[in-house]
């Protein structure tokens, strides 16, 4: 099991980068009115066949050769469904994959979102070839981060340049804090 939803997001989004996605979209949306926390991870990577999509929630299915189990997606599915939420994967070979998990926001079994800023930061810094679009919203307040936009501003300066990396982390942490206000996600 993961201890934070943000770790599930990191893990599942790693799959997107391994699927050679050029753009990975991460959406985290909390709504106290609807009592939901919705997480979407969408990529334009290699996608999966219908058969693979059916098997991917089976913990004993993996395409890896280093081990025989694949727990990333089953963990995420179980975490969402155990809070009265839902879990869905839509995928098409050559088009990409979209994973959607909805959690019951106030459900006692929902683990905290955790350090989502580190998750997004890690993904950006360690996958310089992949672009990321991140949208974080709480009760209608929101902020976004788009690495395509950042790369354009930076010209040739890489995102993992220490000072740029530090800026991205601060951008994520500060803007999340302002978006959260008094809501604890």
């Amino acid at each position, binding site marked *: *099991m*993961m201890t934070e939803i943000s*770790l599930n997001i*990191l*893990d599942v989004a*790693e799959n997107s980068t*391994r699927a050679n996605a050029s753009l990975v979209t991460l959406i985290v949306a909390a709504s106290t009115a609807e009592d939901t926390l919705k997480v979407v991870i969408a990529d334009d990577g290699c996608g999966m066949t219908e058969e693979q999509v059916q098997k991917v929630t089976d913990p004993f299915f993996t395409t*890896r050769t*280093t*081990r025989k189990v*694949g*727990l*990333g997606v089953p*963990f995420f599915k179980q975490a969402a469904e155990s809070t009265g939420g839902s879990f869905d994967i839509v995928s098409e070979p050559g088009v990409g994959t979209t994973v959607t998990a909805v959690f019951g926001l106030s459900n006692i079994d929902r683990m905290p979102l955790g*350090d989502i800023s*580190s*998750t997004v930061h*890690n993904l950006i*810094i*360690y996958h310089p070839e992949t672009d990321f679009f991140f949208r974080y919203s709480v009760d209608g307040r929101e*902020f976004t981060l788009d690495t395509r*936009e*950042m790369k354009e*501003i*930076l*010209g*040739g*300066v*890489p995102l993992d*340049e*220490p*000072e*740029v*990396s*530090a*800026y991205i982390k*601060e*951008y994520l942490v*500060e*803007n999340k804090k*302002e978006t959260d206000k008094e809501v604890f996600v």
Partner: protein
Amino acid sequence: MKSLAELQALREKVQNRVNIRQENADMIRVVVGMATCGIAAGARPVLNELADRVQEKGLTDKIQVSQTGCIGLCQYEPIVEVFEPGKDKVTYIKMDVDKADEVLERHLIGGHVVDKYTMGSSGLK
């Protein structure tokens, strides 16, 4: 809200320096396993600790911190592998933030392998 305007200023500040940074042949490579097994066992804080400390100490031209997938030793995660040119690979197992700091100080900076955390010392091959 933090804006992108700061990024523009940052670009102008670092642009001239970036060209100087290049791959160094005798760089130490430190790799942290970040597949499901590693992440679930606590690899993210280990990776971030190593990357942050290396950055803080201004060692980014000597030590490169990166991540990898699953190497098939899931029960020993978090795993940190150290590749030094001309030396055998060192594999540290069951790492945490404190152990990572120790490995950084004694091995990556000091040059002495921290035997007690290696896979070899745990009787595994």
